[in-house]
């Protein structure tokens, strides 16, 4: 670079971002904001009341939930247990089936492109199906009962888990795997010794995360006659026993907290 051109460049101070990127990001930003404003306008267009009494009205309702009638907790324990059991089965099945699917849909492990693309697409479609639809279809197939509920949870969790885990697999350190390959290990050995230890802690916490999602999804299960805490909650709301409903919500909250606690402990033990 000649001295002169350097001087020139110094004089016209550059902007913080290159002009092109700046323009693109600005455009995207305005599209997002524009779409947001439009959707806010659209969703509020038929509002009658305005916000005048929003909080007051909410307070009137919220008040009805208090004080929670904690006495019901022991009585719904059976249903809570059933929900937990369904979630355990669905999560376990999903966790097992996720392993091959996640491996097949991780680009760094499945280097055979068509296979990778097929699994990916399959998982993507699986993830787009709403849990409600899954539940309804399985009830159509199996009739009411626990099975359709469990299956709906299972398929739903499988979609999420396989995506999360395959992303984790794609971000592992490939060096140890290369070392295993270099010493003559076959595919299974390489995966088992090089990959598994690296993804195990993440795997555990994702599985427990999905478990938590499954517990809360039990409301959907109630809809299809699979029982569980969701059904009881619905019933209590239906009969206007709001303090009981609040107690059930608190119970769900406690279960969620306990799962989170266990999740943290397990992760600590594994890392």
């Amino acid at each position, binding site marked *: 670079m000649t001295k002169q051109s350097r001087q020139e460049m110094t004089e016209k101070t550059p902007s913080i971002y290159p002009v092109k990127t700046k323009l693109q990001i600005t455009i995207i930003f305005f599209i997002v904001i524009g779409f947001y404003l439009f959707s806010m306008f659209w969703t509020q267009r038929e509002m009658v009341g305005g916000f005048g009494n929003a909080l007051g009205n909410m307070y009137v309702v919220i008040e009805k939930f208090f004080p929670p009638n904690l006495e019901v907790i022991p009585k719904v324990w059976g249903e809570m247990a059933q929900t937990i059991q369904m979630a355990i089965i669905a999560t376990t099945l999903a966790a097992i089936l996720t392993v091959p699917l996640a491996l097949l849909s991780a680009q760094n492990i499945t280097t055979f492109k068509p296979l990778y693309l097929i699994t990916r697409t399959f998982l993507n479609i699986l993830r787009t199906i709403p849990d409600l639809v899954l539940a309804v279809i399985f009830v159509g197939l199996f009739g009411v009962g626990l099975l359709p509920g469990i299956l709906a949870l299972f398929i739903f969790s499988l979609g999420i888990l396989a995506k999360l885990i395959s992303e984790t697999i794609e971000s592992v*350190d490939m060096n140890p795997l290369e*070392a295993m390959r*270099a010493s003559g290990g076959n595919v299974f*050995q390489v995966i088992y*010794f090089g990959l598994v230890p690296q993804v195990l802690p993440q795997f555990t916490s994702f599985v427990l995360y999905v478990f938590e999602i499954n517990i809360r999804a039990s409301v959907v299960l109630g809809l299809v006659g699979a029982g569980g805490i969701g059904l009881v909650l619905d019933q209590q709301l239906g009969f206007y026993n709001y303090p009981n409903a609040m107690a059930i919500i608190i119970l769900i909250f406690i279960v969620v907290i306990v799962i989170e606690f266990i999740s943290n402990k397990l992760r600590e033990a594994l890392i």
Partner: protein
Amino acid sequence: MIEFKDVGLVYPNGTVGLKNINATIKDGEFVVIVGLSGAGKSTFIRSINRLVTPTSGVLSIDNENILGYKGSDLRKLRTKIGMIFQNYNLVKRTNVLKNVLAGRLGHTGTLRSILNLYQKEDISLAYESLQRVNIGEKIYNRADELSGGQQQRVSIARVLTQQPKYILADEPVASLDPPTSHQVMTYLKKINKEDKITTIVNLHFIDMAMEYADRIIGMRAGEIVFDGPASEVTEKTFEEIYGRSIREDDLRGGANKS
């Protein structure tokens, strides 16, 4: 014996990794390859155990051309070649013993290894290897609890456990401080002498190369520019390998070089 005959390698993106390589490495030699970053040292070494595949020429090991190898042939080849990496490539969350036993994978059935059913001999071999690099007391520590030098020693133990005929080491000391680097090089040399394992090492530092090598191969832009015993290395060789303008470059800052 490893023989490169007119070996060339072009990466899929068009980068030339190796060009017209001719070299023969005899059993028991301790060869050090030096060269600037991007000279093709790693490509050279990784061709030998087929982590990359040369695109032309003939590369034979023990008088067999390995370039066509696939599947189990390839695994058998790799079983007899041990490799040491710059970043140790240990499984961080696994303990030292298991990391070292990974060296036996090529010799162990899949089921056996997954169930952790190693033969007594294998375990004993792994332990001995760890003791040879003086790190026997750390067998149950997790790999990420060790310092860099200790990790590299574990990776040497892993290779020893493999009982290879050849050892390849790709910049084994680049992440280590000088005293530790010397330690690691000393171990490699010792093993080469005691077990008669042919050893090929990549190094950045020509001074360290001269201290340990029987023979030095200098590379530049994918080609061999020097090949001879350490004693023949002169100031001129140095210039040939690193390029005549290195010092100047340094001073100017050579924006795009590093």
